[in-house]
Each structure stands twice: as C-alpha cells, then as structure tokens.
C-alpha cells in the first residue's frame, strides 16, 4: 500500500519536474544559454554512447568507409539524402516557406527520376539548394523553444523539442515506410553507418579543438539548431 503510494508520488514528482524543466527551457531563447538542467544524466548517457561508439559503431563505420568504393558511398549517401529531402518538403509546407518548398520538391523530383531513385544528385549540380528542414525546426519556427538539452541513448545530442519531433517525423520517413522488414532494417542500419561516416571530419575537428567534448558538443549542437531554426540569421542581425 505504502509502496504504491510512494511510487505514484515519485512518478508524479518526475512528471512535474519534467514539466517544469520543459517550461523553463522554453522561456530561455538565447542559443548561448547552457539550457542543460539534466547535465548529470546527459553526461552518463554521453559516456555510454561513447563506449558503444568506440567498440562497435565506429569500427563498423570505419570498415564500411575503407571497404566500399567512393562512388558507391556517394550513391548511398545520395539515396538517403533524397529521402531526407522528401521529408523536408513536409516541414517546408508546415512553415509556409515557398522558396524552400519549390527547391526541395524540385530536388526530389529530379533526383528520384533522372537520378535513379536518388543515386545521383543532379539537383545539386543544377544549383538547387537543400531546404534542410525538419519537424524540430518547424516547431521552433512556430515559437517553441528547444527545451532542455538531451543526450539520447545511441542517437546522441538532441533537445526535448527535437526528440519529441522525431516520432511524428518517423511516420513519414520513406525508409521506415518500406513494407519488407528485413530490407527496411538493413537500410536503416546502412543509413546510420553512412551518417556516422559523414561525421568523421567533424569528429576529428572536435578532438583537436575541444577541452571538454561533452560541453563542446552541447554548445555546438544547440547553436547549430538555433541557427537552422532562424535559417542562418543570428539574433544579432536584427
């Protein structure tokens, strides 16, 4: 009896504190603000992710990078990027960004047809830029703050807002919509490896530059997301 009571009180306490954290996170808009009330937990997850990366994920990505010819790697990256461009269309629409909508639609149409399902990125060669939008940015555009910084197990840096946005975004992810489960799962695996390979240069830069990698990554992540929400404008520009 008393145990259930304590458990429910603990649960309520947890929910209430998450709510308070979310609110206090929303109140602070400055990109420079640490916004990391969960730092002790985040650091724990961060170090777990590092271990996982060090022993499993990175070696796989390194192997892939070493074995697969560049031409194939580029094609694979392009296919996933094409899928991301298709998702970007939804966010362009939700933010009523006409120019980006036109660019992303044009990219997907050109690359899916002339580029054989996205293997070739003809649209970039034609100078059509990526809109590079997502649902987290869309929420930000409509005034929802990032909320507390979160490090998600296996996935890495995020924020409460972006983490929540991942779920609905997954519902219209072309890869996760594939009906064959083995094909879908292997493609998701390859996509993760491709993304990891893409991080090699940034990782090398961070290892050179950072005193404390956790803080470095958090600051860079929060600033980058804020900049994406503002489409490259800085608060100072106005």
């Amino acid at each position, binding site marked *: 009896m008393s145990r259930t009571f304590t458990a429910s009180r603990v649960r309520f306490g947890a929910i209430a504190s998450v709510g308070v954290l979310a609110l206090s996170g929303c109140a602070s808009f400055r*990109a*420079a603000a*640490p916004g990391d009330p969960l730092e002790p937990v985040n650091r724990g997850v961060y170090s777990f992710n590092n271990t996982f990366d060090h022993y499993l994920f990175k070696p796989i990505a390194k192997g892939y990078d070493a074995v697969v010819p560049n031409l194939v790697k580029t094609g694979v*990256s392009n296919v996933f*990027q094409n899928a991301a461009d298709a998702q970007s269309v939804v966010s362009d629409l939700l933010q009523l960004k006409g120019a980006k909508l036109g660019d992303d639609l044009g990219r997907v149409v050109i690359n899916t047809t002339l580029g054989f399902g996205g293997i070739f*990125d003809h*649209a*970039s*060669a034609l*100078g*059509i*830029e*990526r809109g*590079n939008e997502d649902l987290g940015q869309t929420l930000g555009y409509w005034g929802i703050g990032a909320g507390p910084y979160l490090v998600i197990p296996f996935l890495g840096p995020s924020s409460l807002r972006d983490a929540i946005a991942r779920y609905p975004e997954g519902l219209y992810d072309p890869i996760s919509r594939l009906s064959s489960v083995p094909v879908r799962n292997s493609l998701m695996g390859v996509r993760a490896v491709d993304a990891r390979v893409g991080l090699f*240069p940034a990782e*090398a*830069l961070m290892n*050179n*530059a*950072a*005193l*404390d990698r956790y*803080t*470095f990554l*958090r*600051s*860079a992540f929060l*600033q*980058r997301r*804020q*900049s*994406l929400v*503002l489409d*490259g404008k*800085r608060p*100072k*520009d106005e």
Partner: protein
Amino acid sequence: MKRNKIVAMFASVAIFATTSAFAQTGPDEIVKTAATSVTTVLKSDPAILGNAAKLKELIESKLLPNFNFTRMTQLAMGRNWAKASPEQQSALTKEFQTLLVRTYSGALSNFKNNTIDYKPLRMAAGETDVTVKTVINQANGQGIPIDYSLEKGADGSWKAYDIIVAGVSLVTNYRDEFNTVIRDQSVDALVKQLQSKNK
C-alpha cells in the same frame, strides 16, 4: 632574374607599407585577401597540408595579423575574464591562439577544391563592428556558411574576433567550455588544460 625578384620584393614591401599606413582596408576586403592568400597556396601546393610546420607558418603569416586574440580570449572568458590576473590573461591568450591555429590547420585539410562565395557587405557609415558573410561551396550542394565578426580598432584597422561556422560561434563554444572548466575547477586549471592540449 635575381634582380627581378629583389625588385618584386621591394615593390611588395612598399605596397604593404602603404596599405598599413592608410589602414583603410574595408573588413570585407581583409577577409577576402586573407582567405584568397591561403587558398591560393593550398591549390598551388597541396602537399603543404602534410607539412605541419609550413602550414603553421602560412597561417601565422597570412591569417594571424587579422585577428585580435586578446579580444577573442576576453569574449570567450566572458565574466571570468575579470577574475583572471594579468598573467593568467596573457597565458590564456597565448594558449588559446596556439589551439586555434592548430585546429585551423587541421580543418584546412577538408577544404580541398571547394570555392568560397563572398556575400556583399552591408555596412552603415561609421560602423565599428561588422559581420562578413561567406559560403564555402561543397560538391554535395550543401554550402557551409562561414561568418567573420570584425571590429575596428583605435588605429583604424579591422580585426576579426569571432568566426561563426554554420551558425556555431567559436567564441560562444569556447565560452561554454571555459565556463565549465572554471565552474568545476579554476582559471589555473583552464590554463593547464590548454597547455597540455597544445603539447
């Protein structure tokens, strides 16, 4: 042949002297000249990327004079700057500069055959703090925006105090890191960490 070289050297010294005497070069020109002088060398002599000493010399001669490292360090320290003694301040500035040069050398190897676009500068008359916007064009259609914040000094010359890569300000990034180290430890610990990082 040799004489021509000497003449050219004198001519360039003379040109350099006049530009610094007038010191009226605009901030956008400073960024463009510095960036062009580095990328020209990278293109004509790609082997330099494998030569740490030569690369360092290139950066120190072409880029460093255009930066105000004391200002950068001061901004990166934020409120903690006032807590540091003058000795700590100069040690921090020196180590921070070394770290940035090293990081920059490493980042250059990713540059390869990309091109740089310089955005037109919007600057009101009498402005002393501007942002020069550039974009590095990559083959994959994703341009990397790089902005340089410059400030006009008392001598009239423009010097950069921050670089913003894809929305990530170098100064803000280091401010968070410096803050963490000082919050958890001390200014001296920060100096020590920078020193060991630079070894």
